């Protein structure tokens, strides 16, 4: 069933997913963006993931769990990396809606992102701003 975006409340959790950032995932990401850096942890954790791979994972749940419709635009992104993440770590990615408003033909959703490691330590915070076309999307005022 299509999601009624007008009914999403600020403060509501919109995604909570756990992902293994394994070697294949990181390699696929690095190939897709062309990043050739291979940094190794100073603490013996091994090969480190590009920080934007963590950011991309954190957005995966938002895109899928919110069933983001075609024509949606990503207009703003804030990221704060708290520590380097090693390949092979499992990450808990949570997203909470902090704004849901309509301006003209667009619905603006602002989502706070939080990523923690397996011990519950924060590795990344973020804020995404996306614009959904109001017409043709369930729950529209049009």
């Amino acid at each position, binding site marked *: 069933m299509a999601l009624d975006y007008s009914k999403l409340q600020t403060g509501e959790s919109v995604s909570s997913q756990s992902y293994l950032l394994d070697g294949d995932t990181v390699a696929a990401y690095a190939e*897709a*963006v062309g990043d050739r850096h291979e940094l190794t942890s100073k603490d013996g954790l091994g090969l480190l993931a590009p920080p934007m791979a963590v950011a991309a994972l954190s*957005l995966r749940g938002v*895109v899928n769990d919110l069933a983001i419709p075609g024509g949606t635009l990503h207009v703003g*992104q804030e990221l704060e*990396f708290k520590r380097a993440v090693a390949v092979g770590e499992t990450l808990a990615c949570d997203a909470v809606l902090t704004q849901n408003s309509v301006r003209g033909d667009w619905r603006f959703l602002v989502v706070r992102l939080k990523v923690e490691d397996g011990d519950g330590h924060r590795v990344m915070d973020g804020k995404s701003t996306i614009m959904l076309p109001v017409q043709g999307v369930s729950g529209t005022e049009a």
Partner: protein
Amino acid sequence: MEQGDSLPSVQRLITQEQIEKYARASGDFNPIHVDKEFAATSQFGGTIAHGMKIAATLSEMMTEAFSIDWLETGRLKLRFRAPVYPGDTVTAFGEVKRVRKRDGSREFFCSVGVRTQNEEAAITGDATVTVPVGDR
């Protein structure tokens, strides 16, 4: 690295094949990126790259400039201003605007952006990173 220094630019040719790889890697299959027929009917007239794929060039630039300190303390604030199409060449660029000394470290405030071959701003924003004194 000091105030006024340029960050090492990163240049990439964007292809539809890369966009589809990014869709698989990120799990973002929005048809505006991967469905040519759908995208042709959009305001963009064709597929466009994921904003986060283009933003990755900025993180790569910051990694080149600040190495692991970027992974551990980096902050980015970005606006996606214009679409990037397959066939475009993008360049990530930046400049150190201010350096603040703190207890045992230096905080670098940088303006960053990504422009296309037509000098159009695809992304604008700011990046901040904290580096222990002596590292850089």
